[in-house]
């Protein structure tokens, strides 16, 4: 009996994460049956692994924010602003390590501003961050005259092999993404920051009555999203040696889809880091796998949509919302 309740408990506590692992496995099986020869080729998985780290940097901080009861769309532009600051400073001869730090600080500052705006003026985070998304993109396009910046020189600096070089054939960004996941797992589940986020998203009145500074918690969550976006932008700029002004826009819906496919509900109070990682896996394999099995790219959006709906239905069947 003890064992049975242990497994019940495990399943109950991790049901959302297990759900997205289930979808991921199912997707792999479908691809394998659909195109075994493409599946066995390592370059399919290599392309996924190149894409995944960026998506992980974007998606996991969004889990924190969604769990706090807010949402942010502006991260897709923050991504470009941070990358722009990084590339511009590198181009002007500043040490790339310093540029990296300044890029991350840019992301955090934008997050803090967006968060403060939303929390202090009690704006809808969906609409306000949509505004910021366009506003920042406009600023970038105006500042750069829609021109990209190439930074080939960064290859000779130690930061390049450390962040995006190869280690026994594996791209370094995979290791950084793995460290990021582990850090975030503990940060969300075992650290006061993550736990307060869950209380605030669950019932902000209760959290406030218990002395938690609700506004500060939310603003920090926005800042973390900004940091994640900056990491994504800078890593991508390093990998491609290029900043381009429309950078990041393509990740907007993919990262949000990964959060929800991963099993984090939209209503706040709950979230799963492990689920989000598999959510990212599902989205990344969808993007690349459809082409790999020889279907045309037009099917990609169709299947992305289908999987979001199926995942939502699945998570709904697993757990009723408790209020």
């Amino acid at each position, binding site marked *: 009996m003890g064992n049975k309740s242990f497994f019940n408990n495990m399943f109950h506590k991790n049901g959302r994460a297990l759900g997205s692992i289930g979808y991921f496995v199912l997707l792999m099986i479908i691809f394998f049956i659909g195109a075994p020869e493409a599946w066995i080729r390592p370059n399919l998985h290599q392309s996924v692994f190149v894409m995944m780290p960026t998506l992980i940097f974007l998606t996991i901080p969004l889990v924190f924010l969604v769990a706090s009861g807010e949402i942010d769309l502006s991260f897709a532009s923050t991504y470009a602003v941070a990358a722009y600051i990084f590339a511009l400073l590198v181009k002007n001869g500043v040490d790339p390590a310093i540029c990296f730090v300044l890029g991350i600080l840019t992301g955090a500052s934008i997050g803090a501003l967006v968060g403060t705006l939303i929390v202090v003026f009690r704006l809808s985070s969906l609409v306000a961050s949509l505004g910021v998304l366009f506003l920042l993109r406009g600023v970038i396009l105006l500042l750069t005259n829609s021109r990209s910046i190439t930074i080939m020189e960064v290859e000779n600096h130690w930061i390049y092999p450390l962040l995006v070089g190869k280690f026994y054939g594996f791209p370094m960004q995979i290791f950084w993404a793995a460290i990021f996941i582990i850090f975030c797992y503990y940060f969300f589940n075992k650290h*006061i920051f993550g*736990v307060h986020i869950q209380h605030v998203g669950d*019932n902000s009145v209760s959290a406030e009555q218990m002395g938690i500074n609700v506004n500060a918690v939310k603003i920090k969550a926005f800042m973390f999203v900004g940091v994640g976006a900056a990491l994504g932008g800078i890593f991508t700029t390093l990998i491609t040696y290029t900043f381009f002004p429309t950078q990041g826009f393509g990740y907007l819906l993919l990262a949000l889809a990964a959060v929800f496919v991963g099993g984090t509900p939209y209503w706040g*109070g709950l979230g799963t880091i492990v689920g989000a990682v598999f959510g990212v896996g599902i989205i990344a394999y969808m993007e690349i796998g459809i082409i790999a099995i020889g279907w045309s790219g037009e099917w990609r959006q169709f299947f992305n949509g289908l999987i979001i709906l199926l995942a939502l239905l699945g998570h709904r069947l697993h757990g009723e919302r408790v209020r």
Partner: protein
Amino acid sequence: MENIIQLNKVTKKFGGITALNKASLYVKKGEVVGLIGDNGAGKSTLIKTLVGVYSPDEGEILIRGNKINSWNALKAREAGIETVFQDRALTPQQSIVKNIFMGKELKYPFGFIREKEQINEANRLIREIGFTSKLINAESSVGNLSGGERQGVAIARAIYNNAELIVLDEPTNNLSLNETQKVFDFVLNVKKSNRSVLFIGHNIYHVYDISDRFVILDRGEVVHELNKEEISSPEELMKLMRDTIKKH
């Protein structure tokens, strides 16, 4: 005897409405104070001001005789005041243990949580409070609990923090007789350990039974303050309350 907390001529307005008008209240060590008043008398506002959820527009707050500036919920908890709110102040999707330690988590350096320790403490507390069901443990989510069990979690939180003053806002609302008795036993235990309780209630009989002193609130003002010796029965208390309401 020392006043744990003292509110001096506190005023609180919401827009054009004066919810509290120069209300004063104190609680001494080891006493049970019953706060009564009709709906809209300002009980909730007074409590929320006392525990730092609202900051007063005028008046002062003293903790053990010392004036406190920029009063807030965290300062109240640090001063040893724990509140069992009418709505229980729980987060239903989270576990019992997370709720018991909400805002006052046991931490390692750098803010990581002492999870094992918290779970052990929470299991001990819910047994102490009298959670009998074996299906419930510290990691069960609060959303699956009954009203009485939720009240138990809110009380467990107050016990754990070893508060000097426990504020119970309508603690017997929606509770069964058995559960109400548990709340009474809890109040008596707190008193026995020379700590204080501020008991807010609709049910005059409940308040009469448990309190040493009564404070009657009407339209944001404290209209009566009486020791138990001055009142012979709950009916007399009830009459006093009705008469004040009529006068207005």
